[in-house]
């Protein structure tokens, strides 16, 4: 999942006035200050352990949470004359009609026929033809193979449903996001308004808004599309507006001098010039949409998420594995086709394409003819309408399940002692300090650390976020969640440092590992959860392992790219000065890639936070459980919504602290 794309200039203007502490030159190194804070905090936590921790009962709903819950229930019982609800149900109806039209066309039986309007062969041919048209013949074969595999693995209908929900959501995201991106590029006011909104949209864990959306849009495809759009809108807005703002000034001035109108400037100059960047944005949005569309299975969103959720309920790793593969295939297909499409268009325009116009036209006519014949046949003959069948999926699923069963039968003693030992040695110790101290001690401790590493701006953000969490009355659970997030993020960074540095230094390692990371990023998060759950049972450790697996690929890639970007001249200079490999890594490459490490930490924390909520599904408790329970139980809705907001506040706080810390690091090293 390549979401959470930050604007590339997140750390812009390193020359911006450095924070006062840095200017006066710290008298005591910051690391000692931080260590001092931690020592005091630990002592206080031991002395006042268990006092004023603000723990509330597991199913209790208190104060402001009741108020939130009542408002949510008002929505359900509000009479249909309510303008807002009429609007949302109108939107839901339109979306439902669109999705159903597509489903009858390619995925669900168009009664009385047992097959959709266009059967399997027809859909395959159309996909092949259009991919060839926009992305070249190589990609078209790849697409056809993917479609054949969806069918041979036994998930053709679910795959088509996922494709429909994803493409409709991406279409809407682009339709809404592109005009807003233009606005953001041209007006700093719009930028100031939208940036924090986009930040929240990206840190909001998806589970937290499944509930409010379900109340507004009901269950099913419309709500699935809306939540997918919310999740996938930020990348296209951020990246496009960034692209539009960074166009060559001279080209704009030259065309301005010819007296163009604002509209001409936008449509004839700016948009075409920023086209490459915009396509990158759409590509990122597509990837985000794909991952969210699978989570939407919890509100009956159609697609491959459904078999995965069923497998989670039945604890069948094998059953989740095969649809998981289909999702990864779909992700790779959409990613490569959109990327190839932008390159292919460029090539054709510059006349660099190898095929001549005549050959291209011949292909077009022949291809169209073949496609039309396939579509015709798939409407009229069972053999062409019926998806190809094979036992491939079943065999694969069986093999994976057998393997997992063997491991859990033979290693269950070992796995549970690993889990118990780790929990006692690390998680419980940290939780003792964070969640076991009086709330104000923890709050001051976090604030002090934020000030030390991130400066006064991080401090302000921390105060606001902690006050919000306190107000929502889920303080204790928020601190338990924070514990899991910090532990998981620590392990993500260890992995990122080890594997990332290795990949950054060795071409071979990079080439071998990167495809695995790509695949890992596109798997929907609960596919990870199932095998870990089978091995370690319903524990916080399970949630942490799954979160590390989920967040590590992104962090590793960022570190690898950062190490690679260190100029080879510097490294060679160090080598010729006789530095050992270990010295080159620790004294040259890692310090010079410091900002990559900072970005990796930031992204690692946010990814981990998103996954920890899903861990609430399987015994990890705390805020994640509150969100899930609020979604599933009527009488704790208020608490669930409050937990969702609390997670957002935690996310914003961690994001601000790490972002400001990274900027300070940069301004000091420059």
């Amino acid at each position, binding site marked *: 999942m390549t979401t959470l794309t930050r604007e590339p200039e997140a750390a812009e203007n390193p020359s911006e006035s450095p924070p006062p502490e840095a200017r006066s030159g710290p008298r005591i190194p910051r690391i000692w200050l931080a260590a001092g804070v931690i020592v005091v905090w630990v002592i206080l936590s031991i002395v006042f352990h268990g006092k004023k921790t603000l723990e509330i009962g597991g199913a209790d709903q208190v104060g402001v949470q009741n108020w939130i819950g009542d408002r949510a229930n008002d929505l359900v019982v509000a009479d249909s004359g309510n303008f807002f609800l009429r609007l949302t149900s109108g939107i839901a109806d339109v979306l439902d009609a669109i999705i159903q039209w597509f489903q009858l066309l390619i995925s669900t039986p168009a009664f009385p026929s047992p097959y959709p309007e*266009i059967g399997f062969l027809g859909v395959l041919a159309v996909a092949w033809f259009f991919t060839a048209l926009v992305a070249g013949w190589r990609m078209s074969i790849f697409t056809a193979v993917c479609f054949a595999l969806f069918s041979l693995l036994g998930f053709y209908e679910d795959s088509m449903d996922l494709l429909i929900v994803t493409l409709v959501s991406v279409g809407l995201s682009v339709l809404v996001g592109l005009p807003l991106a233009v606005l953001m590029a041209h007006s700093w006011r719009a930028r100031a308004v939208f940036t924090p909104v986009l930040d929240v949209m990206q840190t909001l864990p998806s589970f937290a808004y499944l509930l409010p959306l379900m109340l507004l849009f009901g*269950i099913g495809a419309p709500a699935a599309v809306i939540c997918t759009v919310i999740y996938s809108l930020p990348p296209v807005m951020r990246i496009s507006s960034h692209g539009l703002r960074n166009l060559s000034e001279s080209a704009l001035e030259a065309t301005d001098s010819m007296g163009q109108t604002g509209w001409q400037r936008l449509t004839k100059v700016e948009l075409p010039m920023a086209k490459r960047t915009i396509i990158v944005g759409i590509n990122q949005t597509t990837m985000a949409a794909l991952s969210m569309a699978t989570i939407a299975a919890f509100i009956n969103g159609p697609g491959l998420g459904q078999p995965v959720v069923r497998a989670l309920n*039945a604890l069948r790793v094998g059953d989740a594995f095969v649809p998981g593969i289909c999702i990864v295939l779909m992700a790779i297909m959409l990613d490569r086709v959109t990327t190839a499409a932008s390159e292919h268009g460029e090539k054709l325009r510059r006349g660099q394409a190898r095929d001549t116009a005549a050959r291209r036209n011949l292909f077009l006519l022949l291809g169209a003819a073949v496609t039309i014949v396939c579509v015709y046949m798939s409407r009229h003959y069972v053999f062409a309408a019926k998806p190809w069948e094979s036992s491939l999926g079943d065999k694969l699923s069986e093999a994976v399940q057998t393997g997992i069963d063997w491991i859990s039968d033979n290693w269950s003693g070992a796995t549970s002692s690993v889990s*118990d030992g780790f929990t006692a040695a690390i998680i419980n110790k940290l939780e003792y300090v964070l969640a076991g101290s009086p709330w104000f001690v923890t709050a001051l401790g976090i604030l002090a650390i934020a000030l030390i590493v991130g400066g006064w701006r991080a401090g302000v953000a921390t105060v606001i976020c902690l006050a919000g969490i306190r107000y929502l009355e889920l303080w204790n659970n928020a601190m338990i969640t924070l514990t899991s997030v910090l532990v998981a993020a620590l392990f993500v960074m260890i992995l990122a440092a080890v594997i990332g540095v290795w990949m950054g230094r060795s071409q071979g390692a990079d080439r071998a590992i990167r495809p695995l990371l790509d695949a890992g990023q596109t798997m929907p998060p609960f596919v990870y959860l199932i095998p870990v759950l089978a091995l370690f049972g*319903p524990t916080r450790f399970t949630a942490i392992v799954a979160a590390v697996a989920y967040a590590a690929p992104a962090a590793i890639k960022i570190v690898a790219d950062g190490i690679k970007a260190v100029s080879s001249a510097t490294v060679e200079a160090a080598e010729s000065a006789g530095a050992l490999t270990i010295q080159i890594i620790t004294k040259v490459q890692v310090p010079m890639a410091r900002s990559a490490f900072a970005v990796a930490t930031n992204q690692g924390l946010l990814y981990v936070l998103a996954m920890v909520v899903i861990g609430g599904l399987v015994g990890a408790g705390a805020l994640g459980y509150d969100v899930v329970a609020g979604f*599933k139980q009527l009488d704790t809705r208020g608490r669930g919504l409050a937990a969702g907001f609390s997670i957002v506040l935690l996310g914003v706080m961690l994001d601000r602290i790490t972002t400001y810390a990274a900027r300070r690091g940069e301004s000091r090293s420059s």
Partner: protein
Amino acid sequence: MKLQNWIAPIAVGGVLLAALLPGVGSNINEASASTGSKCGELNIAVNNWVGYEADAFVVGELAKKRLGCIVNYVYVDEQISWQGFASGQVDVVLENWGHPELIDLYVKKLKVAQDAGSIGITGVIGWYVPPWMKKKYPDITNWKNLNKYSDLFKTSESGGKGQLLDGDPGFVTNDEALVKNLDLNYKVVFAGSEAALIQAFRSGEKNKKPVLGYFYSPQWFLAEVPLVKVDLPPYKEGCDADPAKVDCDYPPYPLHKIVSNQFVDSDTTGYKLVKNFKWSDKDQNLVAKYITSDGMTPEDAAQKWIDDNPDKVDAWLK
């Protein structure tokens, strides 16, 4: 314009026309779609325990194959299913466990759904331990002795107390309140699903590991491992009226069907089947066992049972 420039639009247009024009519509009608059926769509909510899955697929396969309905299985959580009554996403909930608050809201206040009668089964919810524990600690089945044994049930997740393992966070449960109101030294930990509960009890029995957990019947697993129920203070009418103050055992749940009013008004054929559907614990457990232990798909499992029980099925279809 040269002819050449027209080729691309013609080719693309041709494909689009062929794909999108409904006029050329499909004419594949397989025998399975019995013509002239009066049944329209039937959207059955499928909640996440396997007994429910057995109900849903037996009714669904019958509706599909014998009545010619278009059956959609809507996989959603228990309480979320109700949200679908008003919008038509869900027509039928086949196995409702109590939920007076939902009946208040959706049947009485919003008037979008109604009761469609019993399915012939009474549900039981309670706390259970694996049979080896009853043999070794005979008095463990009295709730008053639970605190004595709480050390046995400690886990990494229970924070020094005993662990009470619950199922899916969406299942009917008073366990948090019970632990508090009965002053038990336990912490509720959610396993996340029925399958996770079963796995915990199965390995608890096999490895003689202490497990105290939420469970229910009818459940096919009770035939594989006869879990022993712990007696909580007996249920009395009204003792569970305030969810925060519950201090008694769960009531017996006469499991019943809920249908949306929209569905009752529009579809007499499908509704009649749903209304007549009624079977026993034994029937449900058998189908559930086909699905879980025997690894059959829910469709095949339901079909096997339908083929083996023509009398019962015919009575529903009359």
